[in-house]
């Protein structure tokens, strides 16, 4: 019987199941995205922490080396002789030793800030370096440390006043490239990293020369306002183009933020970054973190499917229980009342409804019982009246 309540409620139940499953699925998708974002952001923030921890450790290493060096009277005496070539030659053995440990820059500055000698480059001297680390050391008569750009490279620098007894005779400066920071970070996490710096800090001519010397493509023109000065990924231009856009770099947050999600081949990546500050606490660029989230996403998708299947099964179970309750509590009692009423009308005055409930259907069944009594009495009266009528007809006829 298609007009049954069952068939009227069936579409509602089906729509309910679909709606419920959809809500569950959308919730699971939302949760997946939130989890992915959180994992990525955690990765970016961990990268930031690692980056600055590496900086701190290397500053300590530079300070230790410089503290030790500054006690060497032999160097001090040669420096005070004001013989640049002699100091350069004498320092080469130590410089090579230091270079092997990653200390690639070694300066002797005069008290006025002009470079007396670079042990890493004999050809440049007597220039004035207006660096923040040097200015800080000069101003505080103590350490000036931090990441700072040279003409072509970002380096971690440490500058220290150089005393002969109590007399300030100049400043010494050690520096190291920071390329190994992102290499270490990649080794630890497996993520890809790039260091991006604002163009205002890079001299295009010097950059062209550096990239040529290193056998690299000159990428100065890749971005409008930034230059990728280092990357853990070879041939990173296309990859970086997917990883971030100009506006991402402009808006990069100090604590780190997510840029974009993209796919290359069968891999899915999420990129983000954190702001990079130099020794003067100026925002000079960003460190880009690109995480391979393929496995993470695969697991999340699998979880989503499980959630969807569970949601459908749960919805089907609920629908089944609801249908069963509907049949037991409403449809069967109603059918019973209809059957009883029909039989009573058909003359079966012994027919009784077995509905015992006190609800609306129970009250309906009680009402039918009362109706039945009225009907029985009416039928009896009618029968008596018909019999009486028949008797009178017979008497009149006789």
């Amino acid at each position: 019987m298609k007009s049954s309540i069952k068939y009227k409620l069936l579409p509602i139940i089906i729509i309910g199941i679909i709606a419920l499953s959809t809500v569950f699925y959308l919730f699971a998708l939302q949760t997946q995205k939130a989890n992915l974002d959180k994992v990525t952001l955690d990765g970016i923030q961990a990268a930031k922490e690692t980056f600055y921890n590496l900086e701190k450790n290397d500053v300590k290493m530079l300070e230790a080396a410089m503290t030790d060096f500054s006690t060497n009277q032999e160097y001090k005496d040669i420096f005070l002789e004001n013989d640049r070539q002699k100091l350069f030659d004498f320092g080469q053995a130590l410089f090579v030793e230091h270079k092997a440990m990653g200390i690639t820059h070694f300066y002797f500055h005069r008290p006025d800030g002009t470079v007396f000698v670079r042990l890493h480059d004999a050809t440049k001297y007597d220039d004035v370096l207006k660096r923040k680390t040097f200015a800080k050391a000069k101003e505080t008569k103590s350490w000036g440390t931090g990441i700072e750009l040279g003409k072509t490279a970002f380096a971690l620098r440490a500058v220290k006043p150089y005393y002969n007894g109590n007399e300030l005779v100049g400043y010494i400066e050690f520096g190291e490239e920071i390329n190994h920071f992102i290499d270490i970070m990649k080794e630890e996490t497996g993520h890809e990293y790039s260091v991006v710096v604002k163009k205002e800090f890079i001299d295009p001519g010097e950059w062209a020369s550096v990239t040529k010397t290193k056998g690299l493509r000159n990428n100065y023109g890749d971005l409008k306002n930034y230059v990728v000065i280092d990357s853990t990924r070879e041939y990173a231009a296309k990859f970086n183009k997917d990883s971030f856009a100009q506006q991402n770099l402009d808006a990069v947050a100090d604590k780190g933020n997510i840029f974009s999600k993209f796919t290359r081949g069968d891999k899915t990546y999420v990129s983000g970054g954190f702001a990079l500050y130099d020794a003067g606490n100026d925002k000079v660029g960003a460190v880009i973190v690109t995480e391979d989230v393929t496995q993470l996403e695969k697991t999340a998708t699998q979880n989503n499917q499980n959630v969807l299947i569970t949601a459908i099964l749960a919805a089907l179970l609920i629908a089944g229980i609801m249908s069963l309750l509907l049949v037991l509590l409403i449809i069967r009692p109603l059918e019973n009342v209809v059957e009883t009423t029909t039989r009573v009308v058909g003359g079966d005055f012994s027919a009784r409804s077995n509905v015992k409930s006190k609800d609306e259907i129970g009250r309906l069944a009680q009402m039918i019982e009362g109706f039945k009594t009225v009907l029985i009495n009416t039928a009896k009266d009618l029968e008596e009246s018909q019999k009486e009528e028949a008797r009178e007809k017979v008497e009149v006829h006789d």
Partner: protein
Amino acid sequence: MSQIYRLKSRIDELIASKRLDKFKTYGEIGLKAGFMISIINENSPDDPARANSLRAAVKDVIGEAI
């Protein structure tokens, strides 16, 4: 014997031949016709309107013309 009683007899024949539940079939026909079939007897007066209702109800419930 009244016409309406003859109709009732015809209904009884159909119920017997089709092995239907007598009271249930009476009830379904009665509810459609608007009166109780069980109280029709030989003395029941003829009423063309009732007879027509009964025929229509039987057609609906049993699917046979009487």
